[in-house]
């Protein structure tokens, strides 16, 4: 049976933050759906690992540092024409309101918010996005449906992406291009382990049991499946939405 509205055959998809975590999961799963992938991240070796996990041929790795304008410029100049982009590069941050300073908030806004916005603009200006493309931003439930202690700056950076998506969806619609957010709940990844030394594994486990109705954390594949839907023609009448993938966390 060949009928599959979720297929990504014939599409070229760019994924940022593809060297680990959710971005890597999205890159790998999209390749299994037939997409030709362009992956980017800072670490050349880890990007090669991502490519080795993929199915199909002709995938491209473009290692750049997207926290700098030069990195955004280099990526777009080397990037082939694409049919979709998933902005997955991002950082977590734990900081109480009382301790937010300019450096702290500028760091997270730069990477989580400003980079994806400027990357979209440059992809558009350099005509790298084909007509009827799909843009997917990895936002969060934090800042959109929930909040948490220590997450004010993170919530700000992610909530802003959901805000951007509303207006950008309107403008990109002129080219038939769609812009949507995915809002994941907690997906344990290496980056989270490194940053989140605040809590013990037991504490996190306790949080999970009590707060996630589906009784587990998210996996990168859970988020990737949402991305596949938003990148595929199956979602061709969907733009400007927040797709919440959180095991039911935000219904409580």
């Amino acid at each position, binding site marked *: 049976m060949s009928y599959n509205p979720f297929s990504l055959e014939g599409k070229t998809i760019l994924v940022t933050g593809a060297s680990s975590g959710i971005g890597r999961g999205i890159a790998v799963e999209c390749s299994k759906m037939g997409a030709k992938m362009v992956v980017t991240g800072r670490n050349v070796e880890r990007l090669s690992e991502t490519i080795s996990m993929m199915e199909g041929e002709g995938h491209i790795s473009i290692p750049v540092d997207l926290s700098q304008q030069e990195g955004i410029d280099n990526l777009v100049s080397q990037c082939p024409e694409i049919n979709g982009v998933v902005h997955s590069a991002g950082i977590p941050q*734990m*900081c*109480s309101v*009382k*301790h937010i300073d300019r450096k702290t908030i500028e760091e997270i806004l730069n990477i989580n918010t400003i980079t994806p916005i400027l990357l979209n603009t440059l992809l558009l200006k350099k005509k790298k996005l084909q007509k009827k493309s799909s843009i997917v931003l990895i936002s969060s439930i934090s800042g959109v449906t929930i909040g948490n*202690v*220590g997450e004010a700056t993170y919530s700000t950076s992610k909530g802003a992406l959901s805000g951007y998506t509303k207006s950008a969806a309107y403008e990109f619609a002129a080219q038939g291009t769609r812009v949507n957010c995915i809002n994941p709940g907690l997906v344990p990844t290496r980056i989270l382990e490194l940053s989140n*030394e*605040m*809590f*013990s594994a037991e*504490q996190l486990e306790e949080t999970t049991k009590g707060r996630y109705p589906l009784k587990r954390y998210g996996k990168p594949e859970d988020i990737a499946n949402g991305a596949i839907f938003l990148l595929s023609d199956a979602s061709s009448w969907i733009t400007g939405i927040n797709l919440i993938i959180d095991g039911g966390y935000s219904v409580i």
Partner: protein
Amino acid sequence: MNLEEFVARFAEEFDETPAEQFKADTVFKSLDEWGSLTALSIIAMVDEEFEKRITGADLRSVNTIEELYNLVLTK
């Protein structure tokens, strides 16, 4: 920063608990106001004052403010 100054600085991170309740031998985790927010604040305070990074595990490994002070000094 000596121990006395550290205790005073520690106390500043609390909004509800009166400063005079904080002594070197105070078991800070038994304070009503102790929780994830105050823990985050203490981690940030140590970062600001000592330019040292302590973790949640560090906080769990000590009981009194003096023990925390000594732990920070060994970092």
